[in-house]
């Protein structure tokens, strides 16, 4: 029954449905708690307004946080790769290609 609960939770990723199916099948509470983990950022300790903005976004709108993460990491990755290539080409003085 525990395995069935794991599979249901995995497939549906929906707590109510998987709990319901568990109750119907076994009729008892499992030993392991499968309550969703809610992650929040403690914004009180943040000094930077930019970090504060992203922390608020993380706490309130994860979809927008994910979009920002994608945009920032791709742009930052391309820029730093380009810059690192230029720096190393200048310092090491050997063909990178």
């Amino acid at each position, binding site marked *: 029954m525990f395995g069935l609960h794991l599979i249901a939770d995995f497939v549906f990723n929906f707590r109510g449905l998987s709990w319901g199916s568990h109750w119907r099948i076994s009729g008892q509470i499992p030993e392991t708690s499968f309550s969703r983990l809610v992650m929040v950022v403690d914004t009180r300790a943040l000094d930077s307004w930019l970090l504060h903005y992203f922390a608020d976004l*993380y706490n309130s709108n994860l979809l927008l946080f994910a*979009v920002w993460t*994608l945009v920032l*990491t*791709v742009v930052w990755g*391309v*820029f730093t790769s380009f810059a690192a290539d230029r720096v*190393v080409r200048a310092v090491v003085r050997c063909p990178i290609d």
Partner: protein
Amino acid sequence: MHDLLLLHLPFAGIEIFWPAVALLCFCAGLVAGFFGISGSWIIAPGLYILGFPLPFAIGTNMTQLTGRSLFSLYKYFRFSDVDFKLGATMLLGGIPGIEIGVRAVLLLERSGLAEEIIGWSYAGLLAAIIWLAYFDAHRVASDDPAADRSGFYKSSKPGWRLCFRLFPVLSFRQSRVICSFWVVLAAGMLIGFISGLLGVGGSLARMCILVYLLGCSTRNAFALDLLLAFLTGLYATGAYAFRGRVDLLAALLIIPIISLGISMGAAITNIARQEAKKAAFLFFALGVLVSVISMQLGYTLWAGIFLGLSCFICMVYLCFFKGGRMAG
């Protein structure tokens, strides 16, 4: 002084010893630049050893794949090198594979088994990579006629190659491969699942499948691998960020260090000896493997020491000696 060496990561809710993270990322970048593969199979377990919660280590690691892959694809290849049909078919399996992997990680996290199962999976993955690298080094050293100097097998059957005739059979014109749709889909899904579960780019597995199983040329395989690494990395980053398992601050800090390491590795690879490269690769992978095993057995301090030592020795060896010759 002590406070200066610790960095608070607000999203993961931890404090890290940032010089160790910087050293790890730089060394992983060096090794990745040497071999033209992503260093994510070192960084993800390394971040876990250095104190990141495992889902955050995986999610944060995925962020460094996208920008670099896009840059490398633009710099080293033309888009005409990419077999888009083969890529789209692999991506069709890859995206669900990643999603299953991400859900598996979250499920393991909720059930409290993530550290145990994924930690030992890292040990298995590293052992497989070490075995593959050792096998490759041994094969080239023994002058296997099928192996070229770069270590890749040359295709014994030039021209179109047919494998697995199972309906529907597709022909991939750019790669000159005829193959069953299901084989390509399953390969994409398997790699996607491994990527999503362990936070690795899957370049090594993808290259093996494209070159050895499907018979693509290495140039086509490299170009396709970079495109797929970008697209699957993009999806995996989004999937982990949407579940709140990416530390944006850590990601923005590790990306430039890894980029610098990769660029240095790519520069040094032209002057280092082939044997030195393989020795450094094997040594570093072995060091990370020992660290992961120590971590899983509960020796956290020793895991950190092993990881730091292997990073330091690998960096000094590659940057200053380049395989027996002093840099100058």
